[in-house]
């Protein structure tokens, strides 16, 4: 229940802008270094001074991880059906449409097939820009289809998670996407087809409590927030401040929930090697 609080914090417009303004120069949120956009991109959107991994979107991950021009997108225009006619202070349909306009994305995940060092994979990448990377029917359906594509074509499945959790505005439908994606992965596992899960900042709530934690191998980027409940909710529950580094990638590795942490510059190579071991 708690992860939405976190996601709301994260959707606040300035958290993105602070890191990625439209201009030529950006300031690192961790060490205040001023970095030129081009330089940042050349360094895989990682601060050259403090190694802070800037949050990047699905297009950037596609360019980083997949062989040039190998990505063939599936279900690009699949869009939320607003099953509940959900209205809070805003109308969900309008929220969806304005987010589509603003981001050029149709929902919080891109899926398709591509190649990693010539090896064909089924690929899904979430995108925090779209309503905090929240998981609703579209995310669940697109990922399920991508998993089924891996099953049919007998190719490895790779999912990059970046999400505040399930999408409140689709209520029980969102919740069921956790069961749906997990059950497709169970079918994939029974066919002995590998699934590699990559957890990036942040991966929380229903996303973590389903496909993100279910990799044959779980890989995390450094210092990503990964958890079930959001830090604020936990702080309120226990009435104490949280220890330094709590719910960060390194904490999860220490406690046995991610296999290893990898810097972004090495991510493609590690995934590629892992595919070799698992196929």
């Amino acid at each position, binding site marked *: *229940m*708690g992860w*939405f*609080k976190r996601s*709301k914090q994260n959707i606040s417009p300035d958290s993105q802008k602070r890191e990625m303004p439209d201009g030529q120069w950006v300031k690192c949120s961790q060490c205040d270094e001023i970095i030129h956009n081009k330089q940042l991109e050349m360094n895989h959107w990682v601060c050259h001074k403090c190694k802070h991994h800037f949050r990047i979107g699905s297009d950037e991950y596609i360019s980083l991880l997949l062989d040039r021009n190998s990505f063939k997108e599936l*279900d690009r*225009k*699949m*869009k*939320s*059906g607003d*099953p*509940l006619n*959900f*209205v*809070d*202070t805003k109308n969900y349909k309008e929220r969806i449409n304005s987010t589509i306009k603003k981001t050029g994305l149709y929902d919080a995940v891109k899926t398709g097939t591509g190649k990693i060092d010539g090896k064909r994979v089924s690929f899904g990448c979430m995108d925090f820009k779209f309503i905090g990377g929240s998981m609703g*029917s*579209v995310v*669940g*359906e697109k990922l399920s289809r991508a998993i089924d594509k891996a099953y049919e074509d007998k190719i490895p499945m790779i999912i990059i998670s970046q999400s505040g959790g*399930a999408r*409140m505005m*689709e*209520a*029980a*439908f*969102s*919740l*069921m*996407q*956790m*069961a*749906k994606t*997990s*059950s497709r992965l*169970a*079918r994939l596992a029974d066919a002995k087809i590998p699934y590699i899960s990559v957890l990036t900042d942040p991966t929380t*709530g*229903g996303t*973590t*409590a*389903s496909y*993100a*934690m*279910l990799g044959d191998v779980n890989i995390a980027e450094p210092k990503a927030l990964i*958890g*079930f*409940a959001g830090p604020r*909710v*936990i702080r309120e*529950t*226990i009435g104490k401040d*949280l220890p330094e580094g*709590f*719910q960060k990638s390194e*904490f999860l590795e220490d*406690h*046995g*929930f991610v296999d290893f942490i990898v810097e972004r510059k090495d991510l493609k190579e590690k995934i590629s090697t892992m595919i070799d071991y698992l196929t």
Partner: protein
Amino acid sequence: MKNMLEFEKPIIDLESKIDEMRKYEDNLDIREEIEKLESKVIKLKRNIYENLTRWQRVQLARHPERPYTLDYIYMMGEKFIELHGDRAYKDDKAIVGGFLKLGHHKVMVIGQQKGRDTKSNLYRNFGMANPEGYRKALRLMKLAEKFSKPVITLIDTPGAFPGLEAEQNGQAEAIARNLFEMSRLKVPIVVVIIGEGASGGALGLGVGDRILMLQNTWYSVISPESCSSILWRSWDYKEQAAEALKLTAEDLLEFGIIDRIIPEPLGGAHRDHTFMAKTLKKALIEELDSLIKIKSDKLVQNRLEKFAKMGVYEE
């Protein structure tokens, strides 16, 4: 009456008036008057309980006198043997489970357990499980699978526990693992929402072949209060949030997310525990009778297809 909900007040008032008048029942005129009032109470009850708002349903689902998992276990079945622990870390008291004779079926029954008072609520952690609870549940399900016994899960939780140790011990992984394993478990699974079905903490016991909800329960991705605090940025919009979330049994049946609603006694399950348990037992036996006829491969395939269909999108 203690634990009266606000919308029940007119009923309770009228009922106590009748009780008062009973003292003078010898008087014929009064007896007639009592009869009139009694039929008025029945009408009033129908009128109130058949027109509950979603928020009022949530309140009924949380009624502190509702039957809980262990109440159902003892009222519905015989020879319950509780099994403890996840064989790795500890025994989570927020989830109970064990073998039970239910009519002519031998089943594994697992559910979240709430407490009735402060002490037992602390012991049960208010029905909010830690990872070891979900892992215990999975261990018991695997045990049931090994010996070809169907699984029944009874869901009643305000959520998985959002604590420090819970995170450290992999709350997310434990829930994810249950979804993954339950979807391919080779024995029948019948899921019943008996009270609150809050979010991933509920779903962690919620993947099955048949999903049932008692009439006055709720099931959603978030509680109305938390939804209110996030989307409205205030705790005051829980009624609106409950409406927006469409979280009642009727809503979810219409969405195709659940399969069946189990009727409750007028006024809620807490008004008549025996009747409620009997009704649920009958329904469970019906479900099991039909599920055990299905071959395990087909059962798993049907379950996968059932969840694959959930979701609404435009292409």
